[in-house]
C-alpha cells in the first residue's frame, strides 16, 4: 500500500480509501472490464478457461478472506464448495425450483454451515484448527459419497433465469462475469472497511484484538461464514456449469489446490485469488499440451508425465514462498515499480 509515486498526495480520506486510487489503476480497471466483456469474441473456443478461472477465483476469494486476512487456516475449503454444489443440485433437480432461488440459497446454506464450523475456532487455534477443518473435509466427503450419489453420478440441470437457459460457454460466461466482478469488488470493499481491519487485527494477534474491542466470536465466525459462502456460490456455479458433479470434484486435493491458488496469487492481496486461479488453471492447460508433446519426443518419460503436474506445482509453490512470499500480486507490483522507474534503479 505504501508504494506511491512521488507527488501523489492525498488530501481527503475519501481519496485515501479509494479502491482504485490513481489514474493508472482506474484506466487499467476499465480496460480490464472491457476486455472481460469482449472475452467471448477475443478468446473464441478458449472461453472455457475463463469460465473455470472465474469459478475458482470466486471460491478462492473466500479462502483469501479466511486465511489471508483473518489468519484462520482451512484445509476444508472444497467441502464448502461441495455443499454449495449439492444444495444447488437438490433445489433445482429434486425440488424443481429455478436457479435464481437455488443460487442465493446455496450461498445462504454455506454461510450458516460456515458459521457453525467457525464456532470452534474460538477454542481451537492454529494447527489444531487446521486439523479440525481437515476432519470437516473428510466427513463432508463421506456424507456426499453415501447420500448423494457418490462419484461423478449426479446430473445437474443447466442454469436458467425465467425461460432463458445458460447452455453454451458464452451464455454461461455472461452469467458468471457479473457475479465474479461483484464478488471481487464486494470482498475488496469489505476488506478496506471496519470488517477487514478487524479481521486483520484478529490475524495478527487475536488476543490483542480482543483487548482492543474486537468481538472475536463475531469476527471469527463471520470470516468462516463469508469464506464458506463464497465457496458455496462458486460450487453452485460449478454445478450448473459442469452439469455433472461428484465427490471427486470436491476432495482434499481440491482443498489443497485452493490453498495453492491463494498462495501463488498472494495471500494478503485482493487481487491474489484472481491471479492465482488464472495462473493455476492456465498452467494446468499448458501442461496438458506440453506433457504429451514431451512424451512423444522422449517415450521413456511416459509414466512420469501423469504426475509431473503435481511435481511442478509443488516446485512453483516452494520457489514462490522462498523467493517471493507475496505471490504474483507482489511480483506484479514490483514489476510496475520497476517499469515506473526505468531506466533508473531507484
Amino acid at each position, binding site marked *: 500500500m505504501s508504494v506511491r509515486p512521488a507527488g501523489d498526495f492525498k488530501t481527503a480520506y475519501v481519496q485515501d480509501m479509494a479502491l482504485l486510487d490513481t489514474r493508472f489503476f482506474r484506466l487499467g480497471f476499465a480496460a480490464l472490464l472491457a476486455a472481460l466483456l469482449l472475452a467471448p469474441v477475443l478468446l473464441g473456443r478458449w472461453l472455457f478457461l475463463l469460465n473455470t478461472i472465474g469459478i475458482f477465483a470466486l471460491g478462492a476469494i473466500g479462502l483469501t478472506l479466511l486465511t489471508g486476512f483473518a489468519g484462520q487456516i482451512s484445509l476444508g475449503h472444497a467441502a464448502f464448495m461441495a455443499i454449495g454444489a449439492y444444495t444447488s443440485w437438490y433445489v433445482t433437480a429434486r425440488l424443481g425450483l429455478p436457479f435464481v432461488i437455488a443460487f442465493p440459497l446455496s450461498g445462504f446454506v454455506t454461510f450458516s454451515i460456515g458459521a457453525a464450523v467457525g464456532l470452534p475456532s474460538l477454542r*481451537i487455534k492454529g494447527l489444531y484448527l487446521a486439523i479440525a477443518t481437515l476432519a*470437516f473435509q473428510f466427513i463432508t466427503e*463421506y456424507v456426499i459419497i453415501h447420500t448423494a450419489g457418490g462419484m461423478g453420478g449426479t446430473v445437474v440441470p443447466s442454469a436458467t433465469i425465467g425461460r432463458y437457459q445458460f447452455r453454451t460457454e458464452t451464455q454461461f460466461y455472461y452469467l458468471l462475469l457479473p457475479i465474479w466482478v461483484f464478488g471481487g469488488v464486494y470482498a475488496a470493499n469489505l476488506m478496506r472497511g471496519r470488517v477487514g481491519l478487524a479481521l486483520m487485527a484478529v490475524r495478527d494477534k487475536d488476543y490483542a484484538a480482543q483487548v482492543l474491542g474486537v468481538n472475536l466470536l463475531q469476527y471469527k465466525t463471520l470470516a468462516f461464514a463469508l469464506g464458506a459462502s463464497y465457496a458455496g456460490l462458486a460450487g453452485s456455479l460449478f454445478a450448473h456449469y459442469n452439469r455433472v458433479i461428484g465427490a471427486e470434484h470436491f476432495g482434499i486435493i481440491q482443498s489443497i489446490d485452493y490453498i495453492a491458488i491463494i498462495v501463488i496469487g498472494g495471500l494478503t492481496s485482493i487481487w491474489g485469488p484472481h491471479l492465482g486461479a488464472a495462473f493455476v488453471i492456465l498452467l494446468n492447460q499448458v501442461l496438458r499440451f506440453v506433457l504429451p508433446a514431451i512424451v512423444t519426443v522422449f517415450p521413456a518419460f511416459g*509414466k512420469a508425465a501423469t504426475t509431473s503436474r*503435481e*511435481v511442478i506445482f509443488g516446485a512453483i509453490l516452494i520457489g514462490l514462498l*522462498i523467493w517471493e512470499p507475496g505471490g504474483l500480486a507482489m511480483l506484479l507490483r514490483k514489476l510496475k515499480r520497476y517499469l515506473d522507474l526505468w531506466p533508473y534503479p531507484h
Partner: protein
Amino acid sequence: MTLSSLVEGLVIGLAVGSIYALIALGFVLLYKSTKILNLAHGEMVLFGGYMAIALTRSLPLPVGVSFVVAILLTLGAAAALGFVIERGIMRPLFGQPLLSIIIVTLAMGYIIRGLMVGLWGGDTRQFPQVVPTGVVRLGDIAIPEVGIWSALVAIILLVAFSLFFRYSLWGIAMRAAANEQMTASTLGVSLKRVFAYAWSSAAIAASVGGILIGLWLGVNFALAYVGLKALAAAILGGLDSIPGAILGGLILGVVENVIGGYIDANVALFGVPLQGFKDITPFVVILLVLMFKPYGLFGTEQIERL
C-alpha cells in the same frame, strides 16, 4: 457383536495403532524441536514403502538378504531426504510465518508423491514373500502374523526413540531446543544440527511406518492418507507430547477397528448403512476431543500474554 470379534478388533487395533503411533511419533519429534507441522509426513511414509519395495525387488541378492539390505538403504535414503529438506527448503524459510511453512510442507508432499507415483505407478505394489504370512490363532481369535511382527518392531522403535530422548546427548539437545530455542542456542546447542537431526529422524520414523504397513497391506499412493491418520493421532495426544502420540496412535487404531468396524457392519442411519465409516472415525474422534481439550490429551496449553 460377539466377544471374540471384539477382542480380535482390539488386538488388530493395537497392532495397527502401534504403527500409527510410530508415524505420529515422527510428527511430534519434528514439531517438538522445530515447531513445524509437516504435512508431507504422509508422503514420507509413502517414500519408505515404495523405496523399500523397489529396492527389495531390484537388488541382485537372495530375497531375505536383499530385504534387509533394502530396509537399511531405505532408512539411509530417508535420513538423507530429511537432511536435504532441512538444508534446501526449511533453512531459507527460517523465521517465516507459520502458514507459509505449512504450505511449503504441503508442496513438498506434492513433489514427493508425484515423484514416487511417477516413477513406480499408482497400482498397489507388494513386497516379495519375505515375512511369514500365516495366521496365529488364540482360541477363536485370528491374528495375522505380519501384524504381530509389525507391532513388535513399532514397539521396539518407540522404546528406542524414548530412550534416545531421555539419555543420549543429542536427544537432550533436541529437547532443550524444543523447550526454548534461544536459550538452548546460547548454551551451545547447534540449532541447525538439531533441526537436521529432527527432520531425518522424523523421515526415518515415517519410512519404517511405511515399510510396516507395506508388508501388511501393500503400498499404493493412498498410503499418504495414513499420514493424515497419524496426524490425527498426534493431534489427539497433543502435538508436543511423545507419550501423547503413542497413546493417541493406539487409541485411534483401536477406535477405528472396534467402534468403526462395528458401525461399519451394523449401524444404519435413516435406513442408509454406514459403510466405510471406519475410515473417518479417527476424524470424528479428534473433532470430539478437540471440542473439550483444544490442545489434545497431553499437549501443552499455550497461555497467551500480551
